[in-house]
């Protein structure tokens, strides 16, 4: 097992947990990305947009700050070439696949009221049964999807 990657995962996870605690402590809000950004863009009438927009800008500037700092602080997976320390990885497919995936992620997180952060990180921390059921459901659906794409259609690629 790649322990340095696991340790970086743990360190990043702790930062994400601290961010969620911070948002609850200061603004009393759940740190669910689909809720924060989805409501920023789709909610009518508009309300409390300022902190949501600020959160989005912060979210974008975090990885950019890490890139500017340099020093190999990222954790992009190596695939033959040495990309250790790169911060932002490449998409797994082209435009048509991403359009389909994006539509499913938007529709699904909209209907299901949350994603990996809202249900996964924040909901599980609150011991919410709804979030536990949602998290198990999207994890199983994603694992089955990857199995079908890589091992049934893709021939084990």
């Amino acid at each position, binding site marked *: 097992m790649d322990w340095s990657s696991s340790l970086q995962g743990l360190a990043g996870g*702790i930062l*994400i947990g601290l961010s969620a605690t911070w948002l609850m402590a200061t603004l009393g809000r759940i740190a669910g990305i689909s809720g924060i950004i989805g409501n920023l863009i789709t909610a009518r009438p508009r309300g409390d947009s300022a902190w949501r927009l600020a959160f989005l800008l912060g979210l974008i500037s975090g*990885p950019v700050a890490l890139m500017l700092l340099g020093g190999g602080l990222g954790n992009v997976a190596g695939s033959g070439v040495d990309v250790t320390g790169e911060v932002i990885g490449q998409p797994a497919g*082209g435009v048509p696949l991403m359009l389909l*995936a994006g539509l499913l*992620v938007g529709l*699904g997180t909209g*209907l299901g009221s949350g994603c990996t952060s809202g249900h996964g990180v924040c909901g599980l921390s609150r011991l919410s049964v709804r979030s536990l059921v949602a998290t198990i459901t999207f994890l199983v659906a994603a694992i089955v999807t990857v199995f079908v794409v890589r091992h049934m259609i893709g021939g084990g690629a």
Partner: protein
Amino acid sequence: MKTETLKTLMGYIAGLVFGLGLAVSGMTDPARVLGFLDLFGAWDPTLMFVLGGAVVTNFIGYRLVLRRPHPVFGERFQLPTRTDLDGRLIGGAALFGIGWGLSGYCPGPAFASIGGLTLPLLAMLVAMVVGWFLARAIPARG
């Protein structure tokens, strides 16, 4: 400083730390995420450590914070109150999981990766926003 300005600043700090966490952990790389979801290939456990670290940290954090009467810049903690399981929750989570498995992007990493924007990522983000509008247009039953 005015309260509204401070609230905006608090939101920015939360987003910044969240984005740093995604980047440090490697979740801004779809290959890492798909490697975790691929249980039957060369399994990459990184995401398990990310989710574990985040949940344990936030579990402790929420226990400390939610003892207070209200957040520092707000009148009350805005926590979900629903406890029922319905088709919208489970069907939505299943659709999301399929999209996540196809791309390796959930909403956080997708938006956090804008600093390395590519055409496929842009397509993903636009389609995600369309999906959010569609979900709003589908009325909740009952």
